[in-house]
């Protein structure tokens, strides 16, 4: 089952490349549907019988490759497939039949998903590196696939960031391997104690900072807004919703796995990512409030929302912290996918990528605007939505540890999000100026965004199962 989650996207990606975007799309849809079912079945299996392991080809570690899925991995896999399927439907309507970008889109998305799924399943540091590279290169390719000069420029910037990030990570892995002679996370966890040599501290620092760069944590976010704001809408949606979460997932894994004794030993270390996270919330929101282009606004909102994820590190010692951060990952993943999809539709319809150009769209494209609004509700953390549940859990954890500053940042961050979300809605509710043209858009574009946004809200009414799944380690 786990192997197929990696092989299926590789398969349909290859066929999509050979068959071209026409028939390839249908194959991709079928593959994505099967992946969604696989991810769901895996989650069910884990809930029923605990952590699942698989030795690829019958060769286990240390010689072969082990695939391991616990609740955290299963949740991430589920989110990835849940976001990917509607976005694929969206993309099939978004790209015109003879769009050159579509030719590369489907194969690259397949490789991207294979990389993501493999990353969530891998059980050693080196395999994580390999999947990280696959993921990064596919993502850069997707950003560049638009072909415009500006897109190539932002893709190069993205390439630079992702290579430096994974380079630092690889260096760290090499140092760890040199010290302990293994890269398996399970074996490493008991080996790395509080009294680990300095080299291990350096390795840990390199790995985490490299991954922060790939997660676009403030101040390493410079590459994200141009890359996410410039790519075609389905690509931006996929990148913002799940790809940046992959490197965050690795940080989280390292933090609670191999490096757990280190982070406990130096308890000031936990405040470094949290501090950067707070700055990210403020800086990202500030830039989103100022942004003139709609997609830039959404991209900077991602910078802000990623900040919340890093607030969790000082709280990880309490029970329920993992659940809270995964709720935030889901909330942002679903909502941001919906928001980029809706923004793409609005831009297609109005013909311009500006907030000011949105006047009157509430009347012409109510479904899309509704989707944008619902996604906004989740990002603001207002009930009923998954974003609200995440906010509730984060604040309660912060209060239980008496880290007032975290609760404060979460609350103020929600209000700042309201400023940029309502900036868009307010403009859209204005009466259309005379002579403005809103072109018709395919219904598929409108409703896929809506489905994603509705999912982000409905999860806020029933989070019990997800929380139970995440609790299985």
């Amino acid at each position, binding site marked *: 089952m786990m192997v197929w989650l990696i092989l299926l996207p590789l398969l349909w990606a290859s066929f999509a490349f050979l068959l071209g975007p026409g028939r390839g799309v249908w194959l991709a849809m079928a593959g994505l549907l099967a992946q969604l079912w696989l991810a769901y079945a895996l989650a069910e299996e884990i809930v029923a019988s605990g952590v699942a392991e698989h030795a690829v080809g019958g060769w286990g570690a240390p010689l072969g490759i082990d695939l391991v899925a616990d609740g955290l991995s299963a949740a991430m896999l589920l989110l990835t497939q849940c976001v990917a399927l509607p976005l694929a439907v969206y993309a099939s309507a978004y790209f015109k039949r003879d769009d050159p970008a579509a030719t590369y889109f489907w194969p690259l998305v397949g490789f991207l998903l294979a990389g993501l799924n493999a990353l969530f399943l891998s059980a050693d540091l080196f395999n994580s590196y390999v999947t990280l590279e696959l993921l990064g290169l596919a993502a850069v390719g997707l950003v560049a696939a638009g072909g415009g000069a500006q897109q190539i420029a932002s893709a190069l910037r993205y390439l630079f960031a992702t290579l430096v990030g994974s380079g630092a990570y690889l260096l760290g892995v090499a140092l760890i391997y040199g010290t302990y002679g293994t890269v398996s996370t399970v074996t490493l966890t008991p080996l790395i104690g509080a009294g680990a040599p300095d080299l291990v501290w350096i390795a840990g620092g390199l790995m985490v900072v490299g991954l922060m760069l790939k997660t676009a944590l403030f101040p390493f976010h410079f590459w994200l807004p141009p890359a996410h704001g410039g790519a075609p809408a389905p690509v931006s949606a996929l990148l913002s919703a799940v790809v940046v979460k992959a490197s965050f997932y690795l940080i989280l894994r390292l933090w609670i796995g191999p490096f757990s004794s280190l982070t406990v030993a130096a308890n000031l270390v936990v405040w470094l990512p949290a501090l950067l996270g707070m700055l990210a919330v403020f800086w990202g929101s500030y830039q989103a409030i100022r942004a003139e282009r709609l997609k830039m606004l959404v991209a900077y909102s991602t910078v802000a929302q990623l900040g919340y994820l890093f607030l969790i590190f000082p709280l990880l010692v309490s029970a329920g912290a993992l659940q809270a951060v995964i709720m935030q990952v889901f909330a942002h993943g679903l909502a941001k996918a919906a928001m980029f999809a809706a923004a793409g539709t609005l831009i297609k319809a109005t013909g311009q990528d500006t907030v000011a150009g949105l006047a009157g769209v*509430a*009347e012409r494209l*109510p479904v899309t605007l*509704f989707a944008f609004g619902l996604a906004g*509700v989740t990002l*603001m953390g*207002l*009930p*009923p939505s998954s974003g*609200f*549940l995440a*906010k*509730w*859990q984060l*604040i*309660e954890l912060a*209060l*239980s540890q008496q880290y007032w500053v975290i*609760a404060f940042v979460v*609350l*103020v961050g*929600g*209000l700042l999000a*309201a400023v940029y979300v*309502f900036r868009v*809605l*307010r403009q859209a*509710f*204005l*009466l259309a100026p005379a002579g403005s043209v809103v072109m018709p858009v395919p219904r598929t574009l409108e409703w896929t965004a809506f489905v994603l946004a509705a999912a982000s809200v409905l999860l*806020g*009414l*029933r*989070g*019990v199962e997800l*929380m*139970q799944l995440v609790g299985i380690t």
Partner: protein
Amino acid sequence: MNFNELLPLAVLASSLLPGLLIFTLPESWVGLRTALNLFGALIKLALVLLLILGVQAGESYGVHFAVLPGLDLAFKADALGLLFITLSAVLWLFTTLYAIGYLEGAPRRSRFFGFFSLCVTATMGIAMAANLFTFFVFYELLTLATFPLVVHRGTEASMRGGTTYLVYTLIGGAVLLTGIIWLHHLLGHTDFAHAGIAVALGSAYDGQLQIIFLLLLIGLGVKAAIVPLHGWLPQAMVAPAPVSALLHAVAVVKAGAFGIVRIVYEVYGIEFAQALGLLLPLAIFAAVTIVWGSFRALFQDDLKKRLAFSTVSQVSYIVLGVALFGPIGTIGGLVHLVHQGIMKITLFFCAGNYAETLGIHKVSEMNGVGRRMPLTSIAFTIGALGMMGAPLTAGAVSKAWLIDGASAAGMDWAIWVLWTSSLLNAAYFLPILWRTWFKSVPKAWPGEHVAARGWRETAWLLLLPPMMTAAMTLLAGMYSSNQMSPLSWAKLIAEREYLHEMIIRAP
């Protein structure tokens, strides 16, 4: 799931489902949209009637769902909740009728009625919430659902009003959430219960509980328009008249006031709140709001703005009643929750009629309007007299119980506050009535849209709702001792909230 669990959900669904359906209807399907609206409103009334009969017979209705481990979305229909539910359900029917008439031929009606139904659903959720978590969920939903209604006209002015509304309510919501989570953290739950839940914590937490109370009060005070958090309400009068009715009578300010009632009686418990010294500051805030709102109303020439400041003042009667320690004040406050609603909605319906029919927006334009629109003006007069507390109106009942409550609680200064407010009420309403009935008719109205046809001075859908609510104002005043009157219901609640055997005598 049995009947007693299903009924509260059905009350929610009776406006949620029609609302969601209406969103999908094309603009031109007027008939089906109207049918859905009225069907939902009537079904809801029938369901509420079932609830009332059940609760009077001692049945309990409730249902809960786990949202997160240890966190439930929980509903119950108790006597206090039903007071608010009944008010909103009845007024919703009238407001829907009025809105159908008011918006006839206007654009974007599907969106309007969709959000309108969502607002009422949120109000029902607020009334039936069985814990603070659920309360907050619907409280914020109400904010979100009212915003598109406030900015419905899509003009820059309405955008400014809507933005002000959001700034106040969202910041208030964040403060409220802080208080709720803090309380949840201390107690492990936030379920409402008679005599409160906070007392279980012990005296070590008194300081924290006082801070939490302040946070909750700020969060709720924004919607209840307590001074100095009232700034959004006069700004929001740019909204269409049915929305003003919704803001001032059916949903929004009531949600804030109702929340304060729940906090004082069922989270802290009235006796524990008194022991913590929370009631006196609350009473002072309410008193300041009562006087300041009435005072500001004196100087407004814009009719809707004058009414808005009047609301600021009147809603705090409810808060004052709650803050008077003793069952009589409680009854006064609770009954005013209903009475203020029916009186203020009458006034806003009438203001909408003047504006829609004759283009009158200002008090100074109202000379002689009583002769052109006698029925509307009679309704307006009844509403205004009620606000002043004139005999035979609902307002008189509220005021009598409040004054008695204040003297029973030994807070004589509150009586002075109430009298001052009554005088100020008279000072800003009587000139309007004078102009309406005794000044001569001008040569031309500012903008006459609807011509009079026989006795129908305006469209009948605009005329019927204010006449009905005006009649209710009189009925609630004259038959206050009837078993189904708001007053009797308020007495029932007060009996259940005060654990002591207290004899509740009539004033």
